[in-house]
């Protein structure tokens, strides 16, 4: 029913004007395991869409290969790869009703009309849009339009489901709802899903695997826990969970010059509540700014040249001067020059 996607050393160069060419993807290698959700996470312009389009076959790679299961699909026509795609701006057919939109891939595949109806209705039911089957896309809300896009993708029972920022045009509340719904839907149909997003929360909450991209190459990949717990580079550390990064104070940790220290804001503890142990990081700072997030508060602490963010209980009494401690086990060290993690 579902198959893994292997992307091997894929490269992409766009020929620009005047023979200038820009490399958009550089040696991208990753596997999206069968029946799981793999998220490609990265900033705008890092090549996520290009990579997804290469998997779909809408764009050809300059180098490397794409395999679906055992099959090399690098030069197979998009419609014969067994992939379906959901687009950020929906990509619906404006002159067709919702029902006809969902049926269209089945019609093209030559599925008999009665079967088309039952299958498109089933897909529409799964996405709760079976009551708007006779409307045109222009008569739907953004959320409904995206559901139509997803239903159309599901109608053909694709082995591989590609999604390019499907929720980014929806409002915040709807995004949270759809997130959970998409995961539930994927578990039900069991397709392999490649999901592109620039939203770290989506990546953390939805995926079985996260692939962090930066400027056309893969920065790190693994389960969300792995990537979050052990970021391989300062980029990943800052991008996922907004880690504090500062030159290591040599006196404190014994770390030499050229080391960047990373601490997550939530790993700071008030000094008066913990007994300091050797190796811990101790920050005596002045509160410059405090943001209340409800139950938590983010303190911006000035200590020397560094501004640290500490996430503390909102009930903690606020003083002008506060001392914070981060446990040795929660400290991350990176080479300042390359940004790569150094073993503790």
């Amino acid at each position: 029913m579902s198959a893994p996607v292997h992307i091997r050393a894929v490269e992409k160069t766009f020929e620009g004007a005047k023979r200038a060419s820009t490399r958009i993807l550089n040696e991208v290698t990753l596997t999206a395991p069968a029946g799981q959700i793999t998220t490609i996470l990265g900033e705008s312009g890092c090549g996520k869409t290009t990579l997804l389009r290469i998997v779909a076959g809408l764009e050809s790679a300059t180098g490397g290969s794409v395999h679906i299961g055992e099959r090399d699909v690098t030069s197979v026509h998009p419609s014969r790869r067994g992939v379906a795609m959901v687009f950020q701006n929906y990509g619906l057919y404006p002159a067709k009703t919702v029902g006809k939109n969902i049926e269209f891939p089945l019609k093209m595949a030559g599925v008999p009309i009665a079967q088309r109806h039952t299958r498109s209705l089933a897909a529409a039911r799964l996405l709760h849009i079976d009551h708007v089957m006779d409307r045109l896309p222009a008569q739907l809300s953004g959320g409904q339009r995206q559901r139509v896009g997803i239903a159309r993708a599901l109608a053909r029972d694709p082995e591989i489901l590609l999604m390019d920022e499907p929720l980014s045009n929806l409002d915040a509340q709807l995004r949270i709802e759809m997130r959970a719904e998409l995961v539930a839907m994927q578990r039900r149909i069991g397709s392999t899903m490649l999901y592109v997003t620039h939203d770290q929360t989506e990546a953390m909450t939805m995926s079985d695997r996260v692939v962090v991209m930066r400027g056309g190459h893969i920065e790190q990949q693994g389960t969300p826990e792995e990537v979050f717990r052990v970021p391989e580079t300062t980029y990943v550390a800052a991008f996922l969970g907004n880690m504090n990064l500062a030159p290591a104070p040599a006196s404190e940790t014994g770390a030499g010059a050229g080391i960047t220290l990373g601490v997550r804001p939530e790993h700071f503890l008030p000094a008066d509540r913990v007994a300091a142990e050797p190796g811990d990081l101790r920050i005596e700072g002045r509160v410059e700014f405090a943001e209340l997030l409800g139950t938590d508060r983010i303190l911006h602490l000035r200590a020397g040249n560094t501004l640290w963010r500490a996430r503390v209980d909102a009930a903690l009494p606020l003083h002008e001067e506060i001392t914070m401690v981060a446990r040795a086990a929660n400290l991350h060290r990176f080479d300042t020059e390359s940004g790569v993690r150094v073993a503790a």
Partner: protein
Amino acid sequence: MRVLGQIVRHLLLALGGVYMLAPIILMLASAFTPTADILAGRYLAHPTLENFQTVAQQVPLGTYYLNSLIVCLATFALQLLVCVPAAFAMARLRYRGRNITVWLLGLLILIPFQVLAIPIYLIFRQVGLINTLPALILPFVGSAFAIFLLRQFFLALPGSMFDAATLDGAGTLATLIQIVIPASRPALLSLGVFTITSAWNAYFWPSFVLSDSSSATIPFGVVQFINSDAVTAYGPQMAMATLSVLPLLIAFLFAQRQFIRGLALAGQAG
């Protein structure tokens, strides 16, 4: 002060309206007035249908109308057949020399028809098309302006729609027929109005290639009738003129919105 400004503005607009409408009103009034009364300036003193009867007796109206209808519909149908695929190819397909074709298209738009009229006339005379209906139709099929207009429209359609069609297994032809054309209804309707009104009103080119009334269209018939008769038979002449614009007027009343969009194109076409 403001009231005065309003009054002046409306007066100016009213004056403009009269200036535009006066000839049409004069035409309609004259059509129902005997020629003798027209010359005496007594419009509609004795309303009559006599002028129309005179026209019907002297002019092969049926032939003219039929010819005009055939020319309009055939021009539009052939325009669609040629321009839609051409515009689609230039907007969405990748082929060698695509930039050159688009460039040539831009060049063609700049060449006025009057420049091409004589070469086309010479070719048509060679192949014996003079005095035939195809001679009135063929020069206007595949017009650069129509291709350009449709291409712009196709370029503005969302790219993800085409990507979805590719993934859904629609080939070029299926994409064009089942997705692009239905999505382009407004553009095609506007093009239809534009094509049909200019074909209906065309006089310059028919006057080149027609010498008798067997293939004559309405405007050609009007001019022929005016020239043939005594110059002073104003009543029947205005009746004939009224008959020539009547179908378009009726069509306009039924589809005002499409008409206005289509006629806006005529302005751009120059």
